[in-house]
């Protein structure tokens, strides 16, 4: 460090984290994949022709004069993150395969198989993902494309995308999913993706292959359902709900700086809708009780959403207006600085053990600490008000089915 007399000694306390040990490996992997791009930058007329030929099946690529271009191909054997030039990021799940060609204003991605999550940073220009069945034109920022034996499924988390094929196109907005396959227009999915009927012209061989693929898929899904059910059973039996934790359990959690807490019921999120529906079913809520829950959500959600949004804006600088409460919570928890998270969780876990959680928010605290206090107070308020409508026992029983945030941050050193 320098010996400037004006230097602030306090700055020494702020240490940057060590980069992960595998960063060199990841860099070399990118370096080797991007090698053709560097050559292309020097001789655009040679490599550009090759790239255009490769991309001909997808779309016409319009390059601006002297653009900075990125191109590559990646087949993932483990989850990996690929930067698509300066336009976005693709998280490729194992088995996924993509080819990309990204210029200053136009980005084309060909996804041949698998499950890929995309985040597009600038949505004003052209960004397309093409599959065998459809083209996904990005109008927003955050979405997932899954290819399987039946077609292409798109799930949108933020913004809007257009799903198009030769038979038509639809707009898919945040929280929605849509499906496209050959021969029929793309359609929105309402919870379950229906398998498209076979083409009238399909041969017996094609039908047999289709039948075999479907039976294999069913076997895999049945296995997944059984595994999920076993996991849920185990977790429910081993992990008490936050409101039922005794002192010893809270103390154990505090040692690990863990503060599991419920998410207040809200509307507008597919995940939350499913959780609440499952909970209402488990508890056996009557029609009147369900109506009471819905009224309460309508009454309490605006302030809850506004509170989460305010924290999100403070943390990221973005408005978060397009995000539902569950997405806001996920972002707040994942984007908070690790040091703040560790300190906040340690502090509140200790308060919980002492039975004295401060519920008032303090503007001087970190965003993650204020989020925790706000989320826990909101859940308590919801239960209290629901108890006034359907009785405390029923409200408590319903609360035991709510979604939970269960983060295990590293305790401060």
């Amino acid at each position: 460090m320098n010996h400037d007399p004006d230097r602030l000694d306090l700055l020494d306390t702020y240490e940057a984290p060590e980069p992960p040990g595998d960063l060199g490996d990841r860099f070399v992997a990118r370096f080797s994949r991007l090698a053709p791009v560097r050559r292309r930058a020097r001789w655009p007329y040679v490599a550009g022709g090759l790239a255009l030929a490769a991309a001909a099946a997808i779309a016409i690529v319009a390059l601006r004069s002297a653009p900075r271009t990125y191109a590559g191909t990646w087949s993932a054997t483990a989850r990996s993150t690929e930067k698509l030039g300066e336009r976005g990021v693709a998280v490729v799940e194992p088995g996924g395969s993509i080819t990309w060609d990204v210029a200053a204003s136009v980005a084309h991605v060909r996804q041949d198989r698998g499950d890929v999550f995309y985040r597009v940073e600038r949505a004003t220009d052209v960004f397309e993902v093409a599959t065998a069945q459809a083209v996904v034109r990005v109008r927003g920022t955050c979405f997932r494309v899954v290819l399987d034996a039946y077609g292409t499924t798109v799930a949108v988390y933020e913004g809007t995308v257009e799903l198009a094929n030769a038979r038509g196109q639809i707009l898919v907005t945040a929280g929605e999913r849509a499906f496209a396959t050959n021969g029929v227009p793309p359609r929105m999915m309402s919870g379950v993706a229906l398998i498209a009927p076979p083409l009238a012209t399909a041969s017996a061989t094609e039908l047999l292959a289709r039948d075999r693929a479907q039976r294999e898929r069913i076997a895999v899904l049945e296995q997944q359902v059984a595994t999920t059910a076993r996991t849920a059973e185990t977790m429910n039996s081993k992990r008490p709900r936050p409101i039922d934790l005794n002192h010893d359990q809270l103390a154990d959690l505090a040692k690990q700086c863990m503060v599991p807490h419920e998410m207040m019921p809200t509307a507008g999120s597919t995940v939350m809708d499913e959780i609440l529906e499952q909970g209402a079913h488990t508890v056996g809520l009557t029609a009147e009780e369900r109506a009471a829950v819905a009224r309460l959500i309508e009454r309490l959600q605006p302030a809850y959403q506004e509170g989460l949004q305010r924290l999100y804006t403070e943390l990221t600088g973005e408005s978060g207006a397009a995000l539902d409460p569950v997405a806001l919570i996920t972002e707040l928890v994942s984007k908070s600085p690790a040091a703040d998270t560790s300190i906040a969780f340690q502090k509140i876990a200790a308060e919980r053990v002492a039975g004295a959680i401060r519920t008032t928010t303090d503007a001087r605290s970190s965003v993650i600490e204020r989020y925790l206090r706000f989320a826990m107070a909101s859940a308590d308020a919801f239960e209290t008000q629901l108890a006034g409508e359907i009785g405390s026992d029923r409200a408590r029983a319903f609360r035991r089915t709510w979604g939970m945030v269960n983060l295990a941050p590293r305790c401060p050193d």
Partner: protein
Amino acid sequence: MLAMVASDSTRAAGAEIENDELIRKAAAGDQAAARAFFEQHHRSVHAFLWRMLNPRASRAVVEELTQDTFLRAFAALPEFEIAGPARVSSWLLTIATRVALNELRRLHRKPDATVNVELVGIPGGDAPDEPSRRRALAALVERAVAALAPDQRAVLVLREYHDRSLEEIATTLDLPIGTVQSRLARARAALRETLKGVDR
């Protein structure tokens, strides 16, 4: 990596020659050279980008941009004068600075308008232990640095955490030295104001 050398100055010269070799080979597509060069310098670049972008960019983004910095360095080899006065480490920080400022611009961030750092009391009871105090101080400083305008933050981070001279910073940011001095003074004043009253 380096042969035995007799003095600090010759060691530094040897390191620069070795860096030149590595970067030339890497630019020609030599993976071993690219890795060796990356391993030598990536901690400094990563730390710089972290302090420039935290908390607006995630850890994963900082790691990606660290890699980007090196890829850009190899791509821009013709711009770097091997025999010129700039150190390779300074050159990398110059590229990293552009990468960081581009990232902040791209994200349309306006830290002055959106980040409100206030004085936070040091947590703890009657006698907080030293590690707790230091962690709390670190969190305060982290937020205070993050609240600086990007141009001030770049000057401050280069000066305070990377020990660059004012002349080097002026070259890195392509600014007159007087502007560097005034930005550094403003950054320090802002930090002093934010951290005023913090018990060390």
